[in-house]
């Protein structure tokens, strides 16, 4: 049976994207439903939320949100308004906060554009579906037996071998061909663990290349990254109870996940701009003539604040080059590059969610100390980078597959 998810929007039909939403929802096994409400309830709903706007459709959107709370068959929420609609964005934000206060069901938001990237919508709806339907599996707090986790990322492939809740082997290599890279990383991880393929009881895969790699390695579990990375972050920090916020910045993608009791319950996906990814830092490191592993340390030496003129991968790097030519110290430029990534993630994602301390930072970029420092400055709170933070996805899936 399809999972019922409430679509709360103000008229996606007019954006010409409703058929795409319906199509993708069907593919991932979600039934999009429009919460019923009487027109006479609109006024009361606006009063309950404390906001009434000019647009009748947006007022009706608030009424649908109130009405949805009375329907126990609804297990998730997709909240949509048009990109750049000022009033719509206000309402979307108010409705999201309202629902967060009153319900625990997962909520995802999206801004309609005429030509949405289907892959973006697919990733969001698929993650929403996992959070709703695989809750029992996601409650696992300990890895058992001997399992292997593959995180086939867009930039790097990470593999861990786990035995009785410990990482005994690992490998982290650049992704070229996803299958070949996975094979190579698995071989290396087994080698560091001193094990053979037949010692592995189960294999789990996650990440961008999970479909291809999963089929190739005959994976026992293939899960999308949001729920897996959240689980990995909970395992690496031992934070299985209470709330937390997970920031995951990888080579080409980033995620912000709100977690309760070790399970993701709301998230925001990046991937719109390369300027907030690890790739930006790789290019910056190259221009500064340091290895990416040394960029963070260099940034920590900065004494004078310097700003890049743009967050953009092209113009930000151009600004970096101009700064160096103008005689700005390398460490100050390195710090500016780290700040640029942290600020963009903050402005485009973190501010959209309610931060729930502690903040756990994972993914390849978490190893760049300068970015961690900038996040701490921006958020005004300590940011925890657990050991093996780059393996959060691999550890998460290796643990989850041991529960099957």
């Amino acid at each position, binding site marked *: 049976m399809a999972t019922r998810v409430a679509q709360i929007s103000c008229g996606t039909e007019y954006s010409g994207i409703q058929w795409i939403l319906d199509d993708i929802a069907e593919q991932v096994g979600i039934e999009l439903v429009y919460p019923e409400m009487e027109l006479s309830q609109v006024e009361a709903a606006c009063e309950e939320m*404390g*906001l*009434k*706007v*000019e647009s009748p459709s947006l007022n009706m959107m608030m009424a649908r949100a109130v009405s949805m709370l009375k329907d126990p068959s609804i297990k998730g929420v997709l909240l949509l308004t048009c*990109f*750049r609609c*000022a*009033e719509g*964005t*206000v309402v*979307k*934000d*108010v409705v999201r906060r309202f629902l967060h206060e009153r319900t625990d069901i997962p909520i995802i938001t999206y*801004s309609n554009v005429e030509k949405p990237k289907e892959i973006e919508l697919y990733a969001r709806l698929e993650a929403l579906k996992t959070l709703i339907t695989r809750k029992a599996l996601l409650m696992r707090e300990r890895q058992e037996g001997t399992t292997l986790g593959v995180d086939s990322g867009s930039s790097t492939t990470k593999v861990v071998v786990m035995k009785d809740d410990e990482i005994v082997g690992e490998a982290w290599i650049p992704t070229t061909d996803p299958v070949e890279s996975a094979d190579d990383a698995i071989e290396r991880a087994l080698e560091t663990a001193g094990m053979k393929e037949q010692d592995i009881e189960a294999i789990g895969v996650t990440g961008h290349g999970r479909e291809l790699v999963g089929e190739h390695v005959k994976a026992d579990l293939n899960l999308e990254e949001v729920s897996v990375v959240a689980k990995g972050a909970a395992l690496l920090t031992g934070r299985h109870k209470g709330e937390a916020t997970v920031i995951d910045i990888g080579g080409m993608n980033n995620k912000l996940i709100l977690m309760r009791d070790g399970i993701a319950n709301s998230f925001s996906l990046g991937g719109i701009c390369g300027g907030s990814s690890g790739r930006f830092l790789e290019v910056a490191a190259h221009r500064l003539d340091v290895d990416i592993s040394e960029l963070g340390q260099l940034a920590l030496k900065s004494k004078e604040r310097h700003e890049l003129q743009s967050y953009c991968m092209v113009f930000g790097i151009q600004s970096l080059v101009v700064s160096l030519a103008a005689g700005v110290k390398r460490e100050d430029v390195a710090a500016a590059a780290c700040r640029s990534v942290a600020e963009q993630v*903050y*402005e*485009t994602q973190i*501010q*959209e969610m309610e931060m729930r301390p502690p903040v756990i930072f994972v993914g390849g970029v978490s190893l760049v100390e300068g970015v961690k420092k900038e996040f701490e400055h921006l958020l005004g709170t300590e940011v925890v980078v657990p050991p093996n933070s780059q393996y959060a996805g691999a550890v998460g899936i290796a643990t989850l597959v041991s529960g099957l």
Partner: protein
Amino acid sequence: MKVLVYPPNSLILADLVERGGHEPVVLMREIGKHVRDAEIDAPPLNVTEEDLKRALRYVSVEEPAGVKGRIGLLVPLLEQAEASIILTDAPPTFGCMGCAVSDEFFKFLIRKRKIPTLEVRYEGGDRMKEMVDRIMAFLAGLPKGE
């Protein structure tokens, strides 16, 4: 008490608050700080990138720059207010936000603060006295500071 007036640049409301024995919280003071700050040079209002970023604590990044700028300027007023008076349907000459979305949203933010708030409809002509009486009665009911 620090009483936020809305529209936030209403001289008449600010004057009433002072006459009522309280301290008006008004936009002019905030803008004044910016204009007198020799370090900032972004005339005429000197709204800076920091103001826009500060707004992000309350508004979505998707909002147009003008909404962010207005809310960013108003955030300090919101955060120090201990009570508020919201005048609805006031003519632009009485004091004005100038942007309908910022206007709707800022009123929402005030309500969410759950501080003592009087919402009163602007009345002209003969009924203006009635409106002023309501405001003065509200101010008289607020606890006086030391």
